[in-house]
């Protein structure tokens, strides 16, 4: 008995110690940096040269993503964890979006002209461009990319917005370095959307495409050696569910002001962390170099700025809005032969006075205080102010005024006849409805509860009902049996009105309050349809802005949705990096990954 004791405990202790002692410690190795990188490859005849050039070569930057990329193929990349890599890290298009200026600028194309009627665009590819395997990148690649882009079987991401009334653009090759694009009709958003078509290597992917195996080409099981890219990086290694490593593309065409080929960093690493808490802790432990976070973590991360040797950037509001709307669908469900919304409720939800009162009853400032620690901004229209190019400051606002809300409801005939605290409509239907949202989003659930509280003060009963996201989607897109819903939309990049066309058009699938209408149900919706079609057809940006301003005005006036707040975004970045241009638009720092560099000034105090 006595000798039973030591053995298993000794073994256990030994395992424990081994586990403790071995493995990673804090990275205390010094990082060798240099003023230049050995570069024996000829410079392209037409490189892109930045105005800045103070970086040093070397070092590693560690970022995070929430889940594995689903593919390396930019044509079929659809969700953020995948496009994070296919757009801008591995592949580029003819033009690229600048997150800070919010303008479109040259990328693979050095310049372009357009005909006076804007129906013909001529793009000049840079001479001397090469893929990461050394093969030349020419107009043939662009033409091939266009062919794949518009292939109906593949339905590439972004192809829907690169069409004019369903007709694709026509790409024509004019020599090795010139591509002419002919539009079937006038298309205002052209320059904003043409960058959605990423150029793919013909010499690698054409065979797979002709054999019908395109979609699995460049899948995540493709080895790094077979993945040919045009962006600043090439894939070095990928361990599923763990991490992705990128190394510089030796044939990259961008250079700094001193004529040195970019990118500066030797390694770009992404850790795959599905859990938000783990992401935060990894950053605090010093394992990652950037962290995008929201209001709830602000105080904690701000406090430890000095200790963790990082800087917190207040990026401003995100390009999106939270809102809730009433189901204004007046059609009948063919399957049940009953209207989607009961006639009594239909009358209430369709009454503009009711919606106006609701907008007045909601205290957006309180929502910002309670849910976003006072850091969010109220919004009253579909386009938030952060969208500098398109926001209309002249929209109609119905700010918080519960007295006014009650007055409007009284005047519209909604009174509480039975004294239960809930008003009834003139026909006797109580002002009582359920508000659905997705249960996994804490902020939305909190906002729904606050809206319910606010509405109770003016005699409207709102019952927040969080449910699983897919259940919400089924209700919104298939069964349409719900009263009201609270959701949020983020802006597309580039933030052109075409990105939200499906929201504004009455026939659109994202026209939430009454989607896929066979014909506009109201006069103002018909007007918005007309305006949206008109602004797409105009090429003069000023004209498009005027028209879209009017769309925003009509939406804010007719309150199809009660817009609540835009939430703020924050970024923490280690101080040892320089050349970072933080933006509230994804990917906050790495949209300019080629210019990120270790800070030579910090080497004296830096151990890593």
């Amino acid at each position: 008995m006595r000798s039973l004791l030591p053995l298993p405990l000794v073994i256990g202790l030994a395992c424990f110690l081994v586990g403790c002692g071995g493995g990673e410690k804090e990275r205390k190795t010094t990082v060798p940096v240099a003023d230049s990188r050995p570069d024996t490859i000829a410079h392209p005849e037409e490189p892109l040269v930045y105005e800045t050039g103070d970086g040093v070569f070397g070092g590693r930057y560690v970022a995070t993503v929430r889940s594995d990329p689903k593919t390396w193929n930019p044509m079929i990349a659809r969700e953020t964890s995948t496009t994070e890599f296919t757009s801008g890290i591995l592949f580029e298009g003819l033009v690229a979006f600048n997150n800070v200026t919010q303008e479109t600028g040259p990328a693979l194309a050095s310049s372009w002209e357009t005909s006076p009627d804007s129906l013909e665009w001529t793009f000049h590819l840079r001479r001397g461009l090469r893929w990461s395997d050394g093969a030349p990148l020419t107009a043939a690649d662009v033409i091939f990319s266009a062919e794949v882009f518009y292939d109906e079987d593949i339905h590439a991401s972004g192809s829907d917005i690169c069409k004019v009334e369903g007709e694709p653009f026509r790409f024509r090759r004019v020599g090795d370095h010139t591509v002419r694009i002919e539009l079937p009709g006038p298309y205002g958003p052209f320059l904003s959307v043409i960058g959605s078509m990423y150029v793919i290597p013909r010499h690698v992917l054409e065979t797979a495409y002709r054999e019908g195996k395109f979609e699995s080409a460049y899948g995540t099981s493709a080895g790094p050696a077979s993945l040919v890219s045009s962006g600043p990086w090439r894939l070095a290694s990928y361990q599923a569910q763990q991490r992705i490593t990128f190394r510089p593309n030796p044939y990259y065409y961008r250079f700094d002001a001193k004529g040195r080929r970019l990118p500066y960093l030797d390694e770009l690493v992404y850790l795959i962390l599905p859990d938000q808490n783990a992401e935060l802790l990894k950053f605090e432990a010093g394992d990652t170099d950037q962290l995008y976070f929201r209001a709830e973590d602000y105080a904690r991360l701000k406090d430890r700025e000095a200790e963790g040797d990082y800087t917190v950037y207040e990026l401003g509001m995100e390009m999106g809005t939270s809102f809730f709307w009433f189901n204004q669908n007046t059609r009948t469900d063919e399957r049940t032969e009953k209207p989607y919304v009961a006639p009594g409720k239909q009358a209430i939800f369709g009454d503009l006075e009711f919606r106006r009162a609701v907008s007045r009853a909601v205290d957006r400032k309180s929502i910002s205080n309670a849910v976003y620690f006072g850091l969010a901004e109220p919004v009253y229209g579909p386009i938030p102010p952060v969208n500098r190019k398109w926001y209309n400051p002249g929209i109609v606002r119905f700010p918080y005024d519960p007295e006014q809300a009650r007055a409007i409801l009284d005047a519209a005939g909604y009174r509480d006849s039975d004294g239960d605290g809930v008003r009834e409509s003139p026909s006797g239907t109580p002002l009582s409805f359920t508000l659905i949202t997705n249960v996994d989003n804490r902020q939305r659930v909190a906002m729904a509860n606050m809206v319910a509280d606010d509405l109770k003060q003016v005699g409207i009963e709102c019952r927040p009902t969080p449910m699983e996201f897919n259940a919400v989607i089924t209700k919104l897109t298939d069964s349409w049996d719900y009263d009201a819903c609270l959701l949020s939309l983020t802006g597309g990049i580039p933030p052109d009105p075409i990105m939200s066309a499906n929201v504004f058009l009455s026939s659109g699938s994202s026209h939430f309050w009454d989607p896929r209408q066979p014909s506009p149900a109201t006069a103002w919706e018909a007007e918005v349809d007309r305006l949206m079609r008109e602004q797409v057809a105009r090429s003069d940006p000023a004209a498009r802005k005027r028209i879209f301003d009017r769309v925003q005005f009509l939406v804010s006036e007719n309150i199809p949705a009660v817009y609540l707040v835009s939430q703020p975004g924050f970024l923490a970045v280690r101080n040892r990096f320089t050349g970072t241009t933080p933006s509230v638009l994804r990917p906050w720092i790495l949209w300019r990954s080629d210019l990120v560099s270790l800070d030579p000034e910090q080497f004296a105090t830096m151990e890593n």
Partner: protein
Amino acid sequence: MIPVLLGISLLTFAVIQLAPGDFLSTMELNPQISGDTIDSMRARFGLDQPWWMQYLLWLRNILFHLDFGESFSRHQPVFTVLAPAILNTLVLALAAAVLTWGLAIPLGVLAAVKQNTWIDRGSSLVAYLGLSVPEVFLALLMILLAAKTGWFPVSGMVSVDHDTLSPLGKALDLLHHLVLPAFVLATVPLAGRMRQMRANLLDVLRADYVTTARAKGLHERTVVVKHALRNALNPLITLFGYTLGTLLSGAFLVEVVMSWPGLGRITIEALVARDLYLMMGSVMMASTLLILGNLVADLLLAIADPRIQV
């Protein structure tokens, strides 16, 4: 075994189809994807057909072509996606199993032999604590411990520098990352097994043949280890096979919270995304492992207990 697997597959398929939405649902809310795109994708994935039709197609592909289908979101064969993940989960489950049994049996024996002393009461306390603490909470607590003290990594299976280490370094790195997740996973079963071991041994120690052995003048240690323990272990051996099953399901939670790249994480991602074939493949893999575990348990029992004939 085959009928069980068939039943599991049918039930799983039916339940998945019952849940609202399918793989393309989230895309329906995206203003940048047109309704036509989604309809054509639906036709291509075969999601527009009745659920029993989809099930039969899936079954046919497995039985005749050994094709588990393709993941909608990754456009990769399901097996390619799952294989590395299964390995990682097995590593975790095995580590937790070693921890559980390596500690449960000695501690249980100790508690039984030193019944009602402070050792026994102390281990009871630990056992009840282990049984009552929710796994998620414990996982988060361990992550906090790791973050505050820096003794262990916060999450993940290997460190960023893993590839640059020597083979020994790589093994140590893996062990270092394995400690906390395995500990969290092992806690609840450890407590249960320890109590069971103690109870079984106490029962056996009361038997006549133990008294006889003592009367014969054998060392107490021989009595306990050579005679009593073997009989006390009998019921626990059966449990050993089931351990794999319970550890697998427990691993799902631990993997998600502690970012261990295993089967659980992939399954939950597939579930949320309604990635049908990936989910089916994952459930079938887990079920197969569970059934194999039960088989192992039965075989072990047959070996250990001469009364049982296979």
